[in-house]
């Protein structure tokens, strides 16, 4: 603040002026750091609160069920289509590459491994972030803007239990299920292209996939999915809950939810891969 007023006065001495500019610059860096850490602190506190209320009664069974259906069942078409075409394109691409050194037989392995370990969880996470993260943020932000969250409090209902916990629970439980389905559909996509377009023997392709794939490949993907499901719902709830005023606040909450959950998914994907496979 002091430097801002100093800037307005426009000191005539060039040395004082330079000092003011430098101070303003340092002040901005300081503000950014403080903003970053207070943001991390707020998200951590929100997370702890959300997790605590997910494990303590009362539980809102009807709400959890509705979220399970919304996050799981209604995301199936989007996630399924993504997985199908990813598997298909993977088979096609690896064929063009591998046929140059007669390694076509590795296609089944490449498809199975990429889908289960990486592509199914990450792409499902990103798709769900766009579909569910955005809708959670918009819904909760609208409730905040129209004072519905305050109304919940005045009716002795904890908004964390009523709004946040059911979504966190449903997201963490349903994403692994979605990813398991995506694994199967993705591998099927690779199978369809290999057998019907690249003239592989159906039996050989399936046997290769089955023999090559290991428990850990699928399991690590499902653990990632659970983490991504938590991240998406958490970011949706956090940004919605802390939305600013009016329609603009709702819009900003939605953007922040999708962007932050997408980036966190990519970061945590790397961290989890490091944990599992090194």
């Amino acid at each position: 603040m002091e430097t801002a007023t100093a800037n307005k006065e426009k000191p005539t001495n060039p040395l004082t002026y330079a000092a003011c500019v430098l101070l303003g610059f340092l002040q901005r860096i300081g503000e950014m750091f403080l903003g970053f850490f207070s943001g991390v602190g707020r998200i951590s506190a929100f997370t702890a609160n959300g997790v605590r209320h997910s494990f303590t009664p009362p539980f809102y069974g009807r709400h959890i069920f509705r979220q399970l259906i919304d996050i799981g069942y209604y995301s199936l078409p989007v996630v399924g289509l993504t997985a199908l075409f990813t598997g298909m394109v993977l088979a096609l691409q690896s064929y063009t590459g591998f046929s140059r050194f007669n390694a076509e037989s590795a296609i089944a392995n490449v498809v199975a491994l990429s889908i289960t370990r990486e592509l199914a969880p990450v792409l499902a996470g990103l798709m769900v972030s766009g579909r569910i993260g955005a809708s959670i943020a918009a819904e909760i932000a609208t409730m905040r803007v129209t004072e519905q969250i305050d109304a919940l409090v005045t009716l002795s209902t904890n908004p964390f239990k009523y709004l946040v916990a059911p979504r966190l629970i449903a997201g963490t439980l349903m994403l692994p299920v979605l990813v398991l389905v995506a694994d199967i559909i993705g591998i099927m996509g690779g199978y369809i292209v290999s057998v019907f377009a690249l003239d592989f023997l159906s039996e050989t392709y399936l046997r290769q996939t089955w023999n090559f794939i290991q428990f850990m490949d699928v399991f690590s993907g499902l653990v990632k999915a659970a983490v991504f499901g938590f991240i998406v719902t958490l970011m949706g709830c956090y940004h919605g809950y802390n939305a600013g005023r009016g329609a603009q606040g709702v819009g900003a909450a939605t953007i922040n939810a999708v962007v932050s959950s997408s980036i966190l998914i990519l970061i945590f994907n790397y961290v989890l891969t490091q944990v599992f496979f090194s």
Partner: protein
Amino acid sequence: MTANLKIKKAPRNIKLALDNVSKSFGNNQVLNGVSLSIPKGKSLVVIGGSGSGKSVMLKCALGLITPDSGTIKVDGMNTTGYSADQRNELMKKFGMLFQGGALFDSLSIWENVAFGLMQNNKTPKKEAREIAIEKLRSVGLGARVADLYPAELSGGMQKRVSLARAIAAEPEIIFFDEPTTGLDPIMADVINDLIIKCREELGATTLSITHDMASARKIADNIAMLYQGKIIWHGKAGEIDKPNNIYVEQFVHGRADGPINMDAA
């Protein structure tokens, strides 16, 4: 221990008391030592212009905003340091009519009205629905609206539903946030009548904030005026036309020129 001592000190009939409550957001001092008290069963209306801190004061009294300093006492108990669970219990004494209604748009009208009953008192669904319909009738709405959703109702009807929800659990203290704002004059008067009726039937203590003088005259026992985060005038409803205070006079008569400068607000 301290809370128990304070009970003895506090006058018995004071239901809700704010003592020297201050709140600021950043550099903006919104409340600057607000003190007021409401005897049991009485109605206090706080008037003031936009930006005078009325809403923040009401939210502090409700416990939705924690004040920076000062105490808020309900039945003589200081509630400012309450934990989330204690606050939940305290809220059962409160009913609140929000300015925009704040109805849950994902729930039907009767579920909105019966929300508190079903969540807290664990009233069975069928019984809760009957109570909700009865409460709707008491605010002049027929049983046919029970299964509609908030978006299907007009603003005045939403306000009535919100009132029905606020009184459904028969609270001891009811808060009204600009109950007549956004309504036509006739509907505003209907809501005023309903507020009076509800208060008389429940024997509740009420705190309202408004800038609608017609409403304030009608529903208030006492009126206080908030200006720049302070209570600058306090008196009986009948005294509002001879307040002996230039600020209150300007506000009551709705004059643009006077000591209150709206540009600064």
